[in-house]
């Protein structure tokens, strides 16, 4: 393999390498400069001035040219098949009202995050996008300058939106004084609930309505353990455990750092006594055999719940007094009892939002489209439920009425679905097997009565402590399955150990940074 090289070629190789390297550094140097210039952190420059000089322009002249709009969102269900039919039906209305055509780019969950990052990085032109606090993160997008500020557009074309969005929610999407996305109507404070297998509750005469905390579950779990050898008393997996273990009056700021709603302090969540007590209880349950031995390596909460092997589970996203929600989701008769309401946080208000891309060629038309969706019930429900006869059937009334009752296809027959809150106005949803009008009313009431967090609108910028957060997240990722399932031999030792490991990972630095940003935010907002 190794051959004696002539001196000549060695020299060439050396100088060649040096030249290449030099060239590379120069190029990469330019690159980083360019990046720095093109994306000032946190204050994106709109690619085009949003407000035109012509204030008196009538809608007719503004929709003179036919345009195509694209909307990126994750695939709500895996087997979306009727996209062409649904788009054709929706585009009838969009073409007539706005002289535009909508195409949905539905990306499956496997590729969604990566694809959106690349599309933003490459500056590909598109118009609308789904963004939340967790998925295609809104704060990352704002930092990259990928979104267009919407204030002027909203004033000009977004009257329906302004009328319908919860006024408190604008705070959650305002960055540096600019509105960057449109927060959807969605359950801002989804109730947590304990779910019980109905037949067991009846069999053992358990007074489930009086369960106030996870500690109250003990007698029932013990009963099951003793008398039902085939059942596992409590369902816990690596990513979920009994409802109510999360502390409802603490609002998460960054992994492991929370704001206490009671005394307004920012704390490390592991330092909160109630938190420790709760996990101690879970560990106690584990030791008594109420939790499956291999719970920490189970990751599929839903599949476990559906198996009907467990006596006590957590809610399937919300609470219904008669247990109908969990009965439908888990597939066997259940009863529920409320465990509490979280405070409304910036995150919960941005659990679904729509934004307009900075690369959009027709931002005005994109805003008009959103406004139309927030105003036209038939268009909204067509996009969400699909086409009549194909994806849903009308039970009472007609699809042209304001409030028909419909039955959407489900299970393996379902070939179309977009959740209404991904499009925006959830309260305009037609009564159906997804949500009854009563359920929507209840959600809405819940939102209106919900207690907003004291730090609503405070958005933590993780940039200065990015490395520490990455390290903390790595520790948590490994520890969470053990913590949530209580499967550690010595709780006290594990817990203090974990605290120490998190501190070593830089928890205090994150805490200090959060406190600093919080104080600055408070000074500007009081």
């Amino acid at each position, binding site marked *: 393999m190794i051959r004696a090289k002539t001196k000549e070629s060695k020299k060439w190789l050396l100088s060649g390498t040096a030249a290449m390297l030099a060239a590379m550094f120069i190029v990469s140097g330019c690159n980083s400069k360019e990046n720095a210039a093109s994306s000032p952190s946190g204050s994106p420059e709109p690619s085009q001035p949003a407000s035109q000089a012509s204030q008196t322009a009538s809608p007719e002249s503004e929709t003179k040219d036919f345009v195509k709009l694209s909307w990126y969102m994750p695939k709500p269900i895996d087997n979306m098949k009727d996209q062409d039919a649904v788009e054709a039906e929706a585009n009838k209305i969009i073409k007539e009202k706005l002289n535009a055509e909508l195409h949905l780019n539905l990306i499956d969950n496997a590729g969604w995050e990566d694809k959106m990052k690349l599309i933003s990085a490459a500056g590909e032109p598109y118009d609308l996008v789904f963004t939340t606090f967790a998925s295609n993160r809104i704060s990352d997008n704002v930092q990259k300058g990928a979104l267009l500020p919407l204030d002027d557009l909203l004033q000009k074309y977004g009257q329906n939106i302004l009328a319908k969005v919860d006024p408190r929610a604008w705070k959650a999407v305002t960055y540096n004084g600019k509105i960057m996305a449109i927060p959807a109507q969605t359950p801002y404070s989804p109730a947590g609930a304990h779910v019980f297998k109905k037949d067991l509750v009846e069999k053992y005469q358990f007074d489930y309505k009086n369960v106030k905390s996870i500690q109250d579950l003990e007698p029932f779990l013990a009963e099951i353990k003793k008398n039902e050898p085939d059942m596992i008393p409590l369902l816990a997996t690596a990513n979920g455990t009994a409802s109510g273990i999360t502390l409802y009056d603490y609002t998460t700021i960054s992994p492991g750092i929370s704001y206490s709603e009671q005394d307004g302090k920012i704390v490390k969540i592991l330092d909160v006594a109630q938190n420790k007590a709760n996990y101690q209880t879970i560990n106690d349950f584990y030791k008594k055999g109420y939790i499956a031995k291999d719970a920490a390596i189970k990751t599929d909460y839903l599949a476990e719940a559906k198996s009907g092997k467990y006596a006590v589970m957590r809610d*399937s996203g919300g609470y219904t007094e008669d247990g109908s929600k969990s009965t439908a989701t888990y597939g066997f008769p259940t009863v529920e009892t409320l465990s509490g309401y979280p405070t409304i946080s910036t995150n919960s208000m941005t659990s679904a939002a729509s934004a307009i891309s900075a690369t959009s060629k027709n931002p005005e038309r994109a805003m008009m489209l959103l406004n139309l969706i927030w105003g036209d019930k038939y268009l909204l429900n067509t996009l969400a439920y699909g086409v009549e006869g194909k994806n849903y059937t009308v039970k009472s009334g007609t699809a042209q009425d304001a409030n028909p009752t419909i039955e959407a296809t489900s299970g393996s027959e379902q070939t179309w679905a977009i959740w209404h809150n991904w499009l925006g106005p959830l309260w305009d949803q037609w009564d159906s097997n997804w949500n009854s009008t009563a359920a929507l009313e209840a959600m809405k009431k819940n939102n209106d009565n919900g207690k907003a967090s004291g730090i609503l609108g405070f958005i933590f910028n993780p940039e200065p402590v990015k490395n520490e957060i990455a390290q903390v997240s790595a520790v948590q990722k490994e520890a969470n399955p053990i913590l949530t399932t209580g499967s550690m031999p010595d709780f006290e030792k594990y817990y203090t150990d974990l605290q120490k490991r998190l501190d070593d990972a830089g928890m205090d630095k994150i805490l200090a940074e959060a406190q600093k940003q919080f104080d600055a935010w408070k000074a500007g907002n009081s």
Partner: protein
Amino acid sequence: MKDYATTLARKPLPVGKLIIHLIFIALCAACVFPFLVIIGTSFQSENDIVRFGYSILPKNFTWDAYRVILHAPKTLLQSYFVTIATTVVGSIVGMWVTTTYAYAISRKDYRFRSFLAFFIFFTMLFHGGMVPSYILMVKWLGLKNTALALILPYLISGWFVMLMKGFLQTIPEAVIESAKIDGAGELRIFAQIVLPISKPALATLGLFFALQYWNDWWLTLLYVENDNLMKLQYLLIRVLKNMEYLNSAEAIEYGLVKPGMLVPSLSARMAMCILAAGPMLLVFPLFQKYFVQGLTVGSVKG
């Protein structure tokens, strides 16, 4: 030559050899066991998995998982087709490009040899990164949602070229020179002398290419949004990610899981895995004998 089997029968195995054998047997078991579990699990019913855990021998044998997946075979067949097509085309073209390049830089009498060798070597040390390559593929070449996007990026890699060059350099120059004296042109030398000699190396390279294209899902993730161009491995990833997503805290908390939603069952995931990996398992033994020979490139062969 003595018959090896009879010597084996007469002499007891030395202890050292025995230990080595045991180590390899254990290693083998460690490789095979997980696969057997996957196969076993794919024949279990959902409830049995939750009740008894994964097992190699299912208590109640059922084809359900395969029924669920093959219930709508169109997507699966389509992705099989895409995977096979990209694997075949990619491997053949990739081998051609790699071998010609490697041959050129293996010839000592080629003028730009050191420059070209360095040129390809450099790509092994540095690469532009994901975003620039994405911009190149999507904006400049306009290859989004095309089959070409699933083939082009892997056609040539520094590592493969170096491997091939290493082998081709072991061909004595005298062979090539004598062919020249006999009046053969460069193309003929390459096609009729060099290629036949390097069969084992070509087989190895072919296997590497085939594996790379078969197992690739990354390119699908980056460049494909169209369901008809999904590769098999990507379908597998999709099934797993969907389940992850539906079980994520957000999905539960914000009630994204709707009643009647299809969640792929545990056994269906396993069945999917078998269907995705199966063909490669069958191909591998056929390549095995070349593989051993081809990988000893550069060392002395008796």
